[in-house]
C-alpha cells in the first residue's frame, strides 16, 4: 500500500469513527430495507401529504394559506426523513449537528441574499399583499402573479414575458395590486375648447356613462374640473366598472366620448403652432391662389 492510499484509509477510518457512518450497514437487509423504504415511500408520501394539505387549505381559505401550510408541513417532514436515514446509516447526530452548526455559519455568510429572500417569501405569504392570479405592478412591470416561490415571485406580463422578482425586492418596494378589489375606476382625461359650454359638456359626458350598461351607476360617474390648460379646459371623466370589464369600459367610453363630441359639435382642441416670418411684429405673408376654371 502506498502512502496516499494509507492516508486515505486512515482519514476514512477517522471520519467514520467520528460520525459513526458505516457503509457496511447498508449490506444488512434490515437497514437497507428501512433506508430504501424511507427514501422510496417516505419522500413521495411527504410530498403527497403537503400537496393534499395545500389543496385542502386552498379550498377552505385561499391559495396563499395553502402554500404556507404545505411548506410548513413539507420541510419538517423532509428533515425528519433525512435525520432518520442518516441515523440508519449509523451517523452520530451530535458531531453532525456540531459540523452542521459550523457549516451553517459558513453557508449563512455565503447565502445571505437567499436566506433573506426565503424569509421575505414567508412575510409575503403571511401578509398577502397579492395572491396567485392577481395583477400587480412592481416598479414599471405589470403582470399576473404566476407563482409565489421560496426565493422569488414570478409574474406573466401582458405581452407574455415571465418576470422573476426576488421576494426581498417585493418586501422593500412599493407594490400595487391592480385587481385586489372587485370594482375599479376608469379615468378618462378630456379637454374641450374654451368656447364650449361647460354645463353642456358635463351633460354629454354623464349621458355617455348612463348609456353604457357596463358602467356602474354607483359609485356614480364623475366629471371633475381639472383646470384651464394651455389649449383646453381640462376635465377628468371618472366612471366605475367591474374589475373584469375595466379595459372594455375604458375603450368603449373613450370612443363614445369622441363620437358624441363630434355629433354635438363639441371641439376637442389640440396644441396649436403659430408660425412667424422671422419677426414677432410682422405676420406671415399669404398669397391667395385661385384655381383656373376649366
Amino acid at each position: 500500500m502506498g502512502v496516499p492510499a494509507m492516508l486515505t484509509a486512515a482519514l476514512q477510518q477517522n471520519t467514520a469513527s467520528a460520525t459513526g457512518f458505516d457503509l457496511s450497514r447498508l449490506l444488512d437487509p434490515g437497514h437497507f430495507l428501512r433506508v430504501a423504504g424511507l427514501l422510496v415511500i417516505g419522500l413521495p408520501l411527504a410530498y403527497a401529504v403537503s400537496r393534499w394539505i395545500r389543496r385542502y387549505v386552498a379550498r377552505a381559505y385561499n391559495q396563499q394559506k395553502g402554500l404556507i401550510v404545505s411548506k410548513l408541513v413539507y420541510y419538517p417532514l423532509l428533515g425528519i426523513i433525512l435525520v432518520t436515514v442518516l441515523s440508519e446509516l449509523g451517523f452520530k447526530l451530535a458531531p453532525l449537528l456540531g459540523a452542521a452548526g459550523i457549516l451553517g455559519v459558513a453557508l449563512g455568510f455565503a447565502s445571505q441574499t437567499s436566506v433573506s429572500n426565503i424569509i421575505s417569501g414567508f412575510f409575503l405569504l403571511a401578509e398577502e399583499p397579492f395572491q396567485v392570479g392577481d395583477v400587480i405592478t412592481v416598479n414599471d412591470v405589470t403582470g399576473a402573479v404566476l407563482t409565489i416561490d421560496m426565493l422569488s415571485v414570478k409574474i406573466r406580463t401582458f405581452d407574455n414575458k415571465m418576470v422573476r422578482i426576488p421576494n426581498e425586492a417585493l418586501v422593500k418596494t412599493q407594490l400595487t395590486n391592480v385587481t385586489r378589489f372587485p370594482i375599479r375606476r376608469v379615468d378618462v382625461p378630456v379637454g374641450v375648447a374654451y368656447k364650449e359650454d361647460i354645463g353642456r359638456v358635463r351633460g354629454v359626458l354623464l349621458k355617455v356613462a348612463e348609456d353604457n350598461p357596463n358602467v356602474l351607476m354607483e359609485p356614480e360617474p364623475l366629471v371633475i374640473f381639472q383646470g384651464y390648460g394651455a389649449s383646453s379646459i381640462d376635465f377628468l371623466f371618472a366612471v366605475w366598472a367591474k374589475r373584469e370589464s375595466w379595459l372594455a369600459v375604458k375603450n368603449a367610453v373613450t370612443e363614445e366620448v369622441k363620437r358624441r363630441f363630434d355629433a354635438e359639435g363639441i371641439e376637442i382642441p389640440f396644441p396649436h403652432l403659430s408660425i412667424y416670418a422671422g419677426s414677432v411684429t410682422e405676420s406671415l405673408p399669404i398669397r391667395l391662389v385661385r384655381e383656373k376654371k376649366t
Partner: protein
Amino acid sequence: MDKEARGPTSPWGDRPTPADGETLRVEVGPLTLWIKSVDNEIWLSSARNGGRPENPPDDLEWSRWALRDEPHHLRVTPALPDRPLVVKPDHPFTLTRRARARIYMRVPSWVRVEAVESGKRSPVQLAEVATTPLSDTWWGGFLDGEMAYWLSTKARRAFTPELFASDQIMSVLQLDNLSDDDLVVEKLLVRVEHLSVYEDEDRLWAEEVRVEYHGEAEGSDIRMDDKPPREAAGAREITPARTQANSFKARTFARLRALSGFSL
C-alpha cells in the same frame, strides 16, 4: 306548459322544435329571438328594437348547441334577473315611523329558452336573454359590496291593467317601518334571485317581498311568502326562484350619498 291555455299573443310556453331549415321567432317586448335547427344542432340568436323583421338579419351572431338527443320541444319561460336589483324610485319617499306602504314596480323580464328532450331528463337550458338590459351597479362598501342591476322605477302605490306587458314582471314590496324614526326610501335592494315568477291571465307576477325595517343599526328583516301576492291569488308558478331563501336579515335601504366615487 300548455301554450293553448294562454292568450294567443303570449310568448311563453312550449313550442315544437323547428324542423331543419325552419326558423322559430319569439317576440317579447323589444326583444326578438330566432331559433332554428341546423344539422341536429339548435341555433339561437336575438336582437332588440330591430323593427321585428320576419327573417333574421344576415349579420346576426348565432349561438349553437349540440344536444345529447334531438329535443322533443323547446320551452320559453320568463325569468327574473340573476343578480339583486338596486331599485331607485324616481322620487324618493319617506315612510314615517310605524307606517306601512305597498309598492308596485315593474322588472324587465329575462327570457329563458330550454330544450326538453324526450324521456325524463331535466330540460337543458340553452340561453337567458334580458328583454331590456339593465345597467350594472354596486351595492355596499368598496371592499365588501356586491354587483347588482340598477332599476329606476316610479314605485307606484297602485297598479292598473295597462302596466302589464309580456316583458315586465310585477314585483310587490310590502314595506313596514317598525322603527321610531322616519325612513327615507331613496334606494333599496331587492334580491330578485330569491323570487319565483307567477302567471295569471298573461300577467306576470313575482312573489311578494315583505321588508320590516327596524332602524339604521338593526337592519331589515326580509321575508318571501313562496306564493303569489294577494292581487294575483290564483296565479300559478311558472319559473321557480334561482336560489331558495324564505327569510333573511340584510341591509336593504341606502341613502344616495352612501357611496361616492371619491370615498376612501
